[in-house]
């Protein structure tokens, strides 16, 4: 079976819900490209996702603003035990799958295994979450530069991105 045409499906879905103005998806003719500078076995890799994963906190303790502010990027220690992490993301196909296994959308353990195998050199100490928004201007002017700053600060060679 062919893949789902989400742009058409989502447009029709929201028109049926009474939203009048269809979303204009980002579209570019030109696509940038940077070749690898060194072998993956010598590279430091980081991970960005939109999974809205947070560390479990005592009941009643509020999440930091950076974890809930649209357009922000926040970071979590990579070696946090998986059973202390959970996803707050609600925008996924809840009828077909679950977010109970982080590695199905945030491959923290799988990437650690590739380091152990020597396939990649190292991982950053922290992974990162992009608080997704619908404003492309916000993403371009605030979110993407924040992600770049993190990569430059941590001397990242390669970034893997997993939109949920």
């Amino acid at each position, binding site marked *: *079976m062919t*893949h*789902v*045409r*989400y742009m058409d*499906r*989502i447009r029709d*879905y929201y028109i049926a819900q009474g939203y009048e103005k269809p979303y204009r*998806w*980002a579209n*570019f003719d030109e*696509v*940038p*490209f*940077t*070749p*690898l500078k060194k072998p*993956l076995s010598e590279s430091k890799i980081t991970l960005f996702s*939109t999974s809205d994963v947070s560390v479990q906190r005592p009941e009643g303790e509020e999440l930091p603003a950076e974890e*809930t*502010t*649209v357009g922000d990027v926040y970071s979590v220690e990579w070696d946090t035990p998986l059973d202390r992490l959970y996803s707050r*993301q*609600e*925008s996924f*196909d*809840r*009828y*077909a*799958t*679950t977010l*109970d*296994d982080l*590695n*199905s*959308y*945030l*491959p923290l*353990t*799988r990437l650690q295994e*590739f380091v152990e195998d020597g*396939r*990649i050199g190292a991982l950053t100490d922290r992974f990162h979450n992009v608080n997704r928004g*619908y404003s*492309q201007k916000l993403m*371009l002017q605030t*979110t*993407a*530069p924040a*992600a*770049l700053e993190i*990569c*430059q600060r941590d001397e990242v060679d*390669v*970034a*893997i*991105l*997993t*939109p*949920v």
Partner: protein
Amino acid sequence: MSLVARHLEENGIPTVIIGAARDIVEHCGVPRFVFTDFPLGSPCGEPFDTDMQHRIVGTALDLLETAEAPRATVTMPLVWTKGEAWKDTVFTVDQPFLSSEQVKNWEARKQRYRDQKA
């Protein structure tokens, strides 16, 4: 996420996206993309299937090494174990994508964003 990938790449950092919404990612245009034809929420493999997840992430690493030009897409030759009925029902009126409570949360997030901008 595609916009973030593009920005990193423009500034000298190679990227690869592992995702499930092929048309949206390719419409934007990204350097490297591993397409997993799975329900939204499981781009890196079925929950608790570590071998499959290893294979998908490994394919992303391969693509980083082999791609020579942008818009490089690899499609994972995998089929969702429970069948493909989800493709007919996702984002349809009969099966609301978000529950009513989730819609309220979504509206609240949008309002907070508008308030931030004001």
